[in-house]
Every structure is written in C-alpha cells, then in structure tokens.
C-alpha cells in the first residue's frame, strides 16, 4: 500500500503551495503512524520484521478497500454505514455463483455488480429521494444484512473454486495479492479524485452543494456515483475476504463501516464533506492495522486493546490536528 505514496509525490504537477499544504496535511497522519510504530518497535522485537510488516499491510487491506470507497463518499458530503452488509450480500452471492459453476471472472463481475446495485439503491434514495445519508445507509445496514441471511438461511457457503482461492492467497514478489489489489485500487482512486472531473465534482459537491449545482455540476449523479463506488469497493473487499477464508458468510462485514470511517477520519477526511485524501486514508488504515498487530504481539488483553484503540483514535486525531493547524 505504501506504493501509493509515489503518485502523490511524483506525478502531481502541482505548485509548491498546494503540494506543501497537502503534504503538510498528510504529514500529521504519517507522524502519528511513525510514533505508534516506534513505540511498538521499542516494545517488541518481532514488530519491525519484514514478514510482520507485510502481515500488517495484508491485514489492513480489506479495511483499506472499504475505506477508499468511504473516503469518496465522505468527501462528497455523505456517509455509508451499509458497507458491511453490502459486502456480505455481494460476497455471498458471488460465492454462490462460483459454487454453482459460473466461471470465476464472471462471478467476480457479478459480485461487483451486486455491490454497485446496493450502492445504487442507497444512492438513489439519498440523491433523488432526498433522504439523509446516515439514516438511509442505516436502513441499508439492516436491509442488506437481512437479505444475505435470508438468501443463505444463515449458513456459510463453502467450497469456493481453488483457482479463486489461490489467486487471493497468492503473492507478487513477496507482496500478498490483496495488498497489490488494494494498492492498484488506491492509485485508481487517487487518480479519480485528483485528476478527473468526477473527482473535482466530489470535492465540489461535498464542499458546497448549492454552489456546485449552480455551476452545473450534476450533483445528484455525483453523489450517486460515490455510493456506487463505495458499493463496488465493499464487494471487492468481500471477494478478497471470501477468497482468504474459503467461505462466504452472511454475517461477514460486521462493523466494517466503523473501521473505514475511522480510517478516513484519521487520514484527514472531514465528515462534513469537501475534504479528504486517499493517501491519508491509507495511512489511517495502516495505523489501525498496526495498532491491532502491535497490541496482539504484546499480548495485551482484549479489554485493554479496546482501551488502546479508543485512546489511539483520539490521540491520532489530536496529533493530526496539532500538525495540520486548521479546523477539523
């Protein structure tokens, strides 16, 4: 996932002022990560080893996948609480297709389409129905979960094709495929946000929807696109997970939304919209992954892990705020 740092620094033909501002903004998040990393490295020797660092990236990859979509939704001024259940339903249906003998690439496409459809459903209610994103996706949270449970009768789907599993569990030059996939998605998301009109529209719609409308930005379509993308990312996250697990459970994706939102926020996204960074979000995911990894290595008891998670979310935000200066 670290690879995504590259485009930010070398392809941006941006002027010093903006670039330094962005760098400065993300610098706070990176500083937070470094402090956490340094503490763990000092406390346990097994932390700072290559396999463990790869392990952290691997463990952060699903959250990163979800958080990328979430970041776009948040930037466009919304929120998507339904990512977990969307992941569940697309994972379950994707798995069912594979088990039924649908060729793997087709089943993957099918699963992503289901994610897109779920995103389209919530997106349509939000944009054309004019409802509040929080409450629509809260409804979606129950709705999609229920559909996944009803479809499977509550039992997991086993027996995914070996080829599919081999792919998700494979490596590219020692880097696990999920990490590679998410890195590619992150680069795409970065390009989308920073280099394409749609990205500009996300920022405009989240920053000032009225002004965006007057300026001729297709506000509804833009928001709609954000939820669709979030739905698709949720299904990709689900595919990675079911590939790793070898099974698709209707309960998968529980609480994913909170981790994804936390990662985006730690990475500097403003929950009131209009601001956020792909790179920051990735760092946010890695911070959360590092935290979990380090606390386990230190054999910290579950209750204290929970305590540490709560504290570190707050401390990361404080560091970030202290370094970035401006209002949250």
């Amino acid at each position: 996932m670290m690879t995504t740092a590259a485009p930010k620094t070398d392809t941006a033909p941006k002027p010093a002022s903006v670039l330094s501002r962005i760098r400065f903004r993300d610098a706070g998040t990176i500083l937070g990560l470094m402090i956490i990393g340094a503490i763990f490295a000092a406390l346990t020797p097994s932390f700072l080893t290559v396999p463990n660092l790869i392990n952290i990236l691997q463990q952060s990859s699903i959250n990163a996948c979800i958080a990328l979509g979430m970041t776009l939704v948040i930037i466009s001024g919304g929120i998507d609480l339904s990512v977990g259940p969307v992941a569940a339903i697309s994972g379950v249906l994707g798995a069912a297709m594979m088990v039924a003998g649908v060729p793997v690439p087709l089943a993957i496409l099918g699963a992503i389409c289901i994610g897109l459809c779920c995103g389209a459903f919530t997106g349509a209610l939000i944009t054309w129905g004019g409802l509040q994103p929080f409450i629509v996706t809260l409804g979606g949270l129950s709705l999609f979960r229920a559909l996944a449970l009803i479809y499977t009768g509550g039992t997991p789907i086993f027996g995914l094709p070996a080829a599919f599993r081999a792919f998700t569990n494979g490596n590219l030059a020692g880097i696990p495929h999920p990490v590679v996939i998410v890195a590619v998605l992150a680069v795409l998301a970065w390009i989308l946000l920073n280099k394409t009109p749609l990205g500009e529209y996300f920022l405009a719609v989240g920053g000032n929807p009225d002004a965006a409308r007057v300026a001729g930005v297709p506000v509804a379509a833009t928001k709609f696109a954000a939820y669709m993308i979030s739905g698709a990312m949720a299904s990709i996250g689900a595919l990675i997970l079911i590939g790793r697990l070898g099974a698709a459970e209707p309960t998968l994706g529980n609480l994913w939304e909170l981790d994804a939102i936390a990662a985006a926020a730690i990475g500097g996204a403003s929950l009131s919209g209009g601001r956020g960074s792909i790179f920051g979000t990735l760092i946010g995911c890695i911070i959360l992954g590092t935290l979990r990894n380090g606390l386990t290595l230190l054999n910290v008891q579950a209750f204290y892990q929970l305590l540490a998670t709560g504290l570190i979310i707050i401390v990361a935000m404080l560091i970030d705020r202290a370094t970035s200066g401006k209002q949250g």
Partner: protein
Amino acid sequence: MTHPRLSLSGIDKSFGPIAVLHGVNLTVAPGEVHGLVGENGAGKSTLLNILSGVLRPTAGTVEIDGQPVSIASPRDAAAQGIAMIHQELQQVPELTVAQNIFLGASLRRAGGLFIDHAAQEAEAQRLLADLDPAIDVTAPVKTLRVAQRQIVEIAKARRANARIIAMDEPTSSLMPAEVDRLAEVIRGLAAKGVSIIYVSHKMDEIYRLCSAATVMRDGHLVGRVALPETPVEDVIRLMVGRALVHATHRSFATPRPVLEVRGLSRGSVVRDASFTLHAGEVLGIAGLVGSGRTELLRLIAGIDRAESGTVEINGTAVAATPLARIRAGLGLLPEERKREGIIRWRPVASNIGLSSMRRFSRAGLIRKGALEARALDLMREVQLRPLDVRRPIGNFSGGNQQKVILGRWLAAEAEILLFDEPTRGIDVGAKAEIYELIERLAEDGKAIVVVSSELPEVIRVSDRVLVMCEGRITAELTAGEIGEAAIARAAIPAA
C-alpha cells in the same frame, strides 16, 4: 480630554505566512461617520473583523476613549459597545428574524431563565419600523431575500446600543430608497454620538455620509482624507494608485436572437415573463428589492423549476436543469456568492474550471496545466489579488471571489451570461474593469443580462432595460428612453 472614540494603531495581521495588514492606524471621533475605502482585498474587512473580535491581530493596539482594550472575541467587542454588520450575512437560517436580531443578547424573562420571545418580537418590529416594516419578525430568516436579510443585519447592529458600529458594505444589495432610509438611521445614530465606520465601494454614499475617510491599499494605510473637500478623483487615485477614465456606453447589439424567454412563471414571484435577448446585447433588468429579478434569472438558468413557460436557446427548447442550460451556453453569476458561488476549500483554478470540466480534460483526465494556465490568464485580466490560482478561494476577499466566479463562465465560454448583481462588493477600480469586460464580452458577440440594484450601473452597461415590479416585466426601455426617472416609474407598484 478630547480622546478619539476609537483608535486602532499599528495593526498587523497575518494568515500563516500571508501578511494582509501592515501597521494600519484608524481613528474615529465620537459621533463621526468615518469612511473606510480601498480596493478588493485591501484589508478593510480584515481590519473590521479585528475590531469586532472575529479575528485577533498579530500586532497592534485598540483604544476606546483613550483606554486600551483587549478584544479577544465577539463577546468582548459587544461588551465594549462595538457592533458590526458583516459583509457576508451572518445569520442562522432556521431562526426567526427576531431571534437573529437578538441572538447572543436575548431578552429574558423569569429571572433570565427564559427568552422573552414576545418582547423580542415587539422590539424587533420597532427596530425594523423605519427600515422595512414589511419584514415579518416571526418568519425564519431563510425565507427572506438577501436585501431583507441585509436590513435585518442593520437592525441587529442598532439593537446593540453600541458606541461604535462598523458597517462592512451594508448597502451592497439595497435599493436607493432603502439606502436613503439607512442614511437617515446612520445620521440619527451619529447625532446621538455613536461612531460609525462605513465601508462601501459606492463613492456617492461615502461622500453623502462621511466626514472623513481612511484609504487602504494592499493592507497599508495610504491616507486619511477629509470629506467632502477631497475630490473623488483624488480618493480613487489613492485607492487604486492611478486615475480612472470614465467611459461611455458602447453598444454591440446584433439582431440575432439567442435567448427566447416565453411566459415564464413561478407562483407570484415571477409572472409571465417574456423577452428576447440578442447576440452582443447587454440587457439590464432593474426593479425594487423583491421584484423577482433574481428568481427570473434562476428560472432561466434552470436552478428553480418554472411552473409554466419555456426557455429557448438558439432556437431550441432546453431542458430545465442547470446542466442542460449550461451545456446550451448559459452561465449564471449568482447573487449570494458564498452560498451559491464558491467551493471554499478548493483552489481558484478548480473553482474556475468547475463548469467546463469537459473542456479542460482529455481522455477522462483533467489537464491541470491547461486549466491553471487558463485560470491565470483570466484572473490576470480581472486583476485577482493576490494572483495565485492555487490558493483556496475561501482565503480571498469577497470582491476577489466574485472575480473568480466570473472567470468560471469566461472559462466555460458561455454565450449567454446572466449577471446577478455583478459588482456587488466590488471596488470602483474593479467595477470599471468589469464594465469594460462586459463591453468586451458583448463585442465578442455574447449575450448578457445584468440584474443590478444600482441604477447608474444599469444605465451604464445596458443597451436595453427591462423593469420588473412584483414579478412582472412592467417596462422595456430602449436606448433613448433609459434613465433613472423612467426606471423608477415602472419599478414602483401602482397603489
């Protein structure tokens, strides 16, 4: 013993690395109406925001009646008897007019436990009586139009019983009659010993009201002039560093119709409006506050939905969405730029390119270089200050933000431009530039509608003037007929 009422000295202010005020001094005597003038971005609002506790100065002192005071917050300012009318309306849309007027200083009953809504409403009614008695003090502010909201701000400043009132462009959306009423109010306040700092880009108001003025340029104090002794040319030269030449109206109208508006209606706000706009023509729309001009433009731009009527561009009917109308070549410069114009966290270039993303992208990717180059060209033309297209637009002064929004439509190469109060909050120098720009655009064959509450402006730029009254177009004045008297006659509703 003759201390000035207010004395600001050596005020510096920086936003991070950007210094915007450099050792500014300002003194105002009791009962004086003191003008504060300068170009867009000169630092007037910043100075007043420091006075009213919204911003904290980097250096400098404030003295009131010879006593140094520390103003760390708007509350402190209020406690010192300082009130301010902000350039950007500072209101809570969901609260009523009365609640907004008394926000932060509510009238209480039951020993201070409860708000006395009835008393507030009565008092608000009284405060508004000589400004605009038609305003319903119990209506949420969001249902008011800009002009009425501005009047509410004035009432709010009066409510405070302040010793010092800072007014940052209080008349930018007011009609002459309302400006007159405000002038009366200001004179009354001054007579009671209240000191008033009056910021405006309208030189006639400054001359009418003020006994002296402080002139700023680029964050520096460049002079203090006595009025009305100092000729207006001298003041302007101080402001802009050069003299302005007065140009007269030139027409480039052609007979080719580009915009046909037929029977456009929406409730009682706009009723059966029809007109034709031609290439190269500048069509002024005048009218009293609330006459429906803004709404007419919004209907034409597709932002609000018309109940009936059609809009044809170049002979074809266009769907009533902003996007479709923009694609057909239309552009609207909105009246409330903060709410409907700017995306404040985004850089100037992004704000400029927002409506012409297609033009600035290739193979789905934005050509940032081309966009920034174009933005820089456009902004150099309108003299954006500071000329940095990568800075977030929120960090620019009000007038400069307006220039950026203007640039948006120039970049989009709109054929039909709808300007709603195009020079609202724009300084005299830039105003002249914008008039020239409008002329140049007309010369290029663009068709332009200018809604303005400043009659001289309408008369200056228009080839033809429509006058609106209570939602209807009540008069069409062509070249020879345009004049203040004729406009006023058609604008005032028949009793």
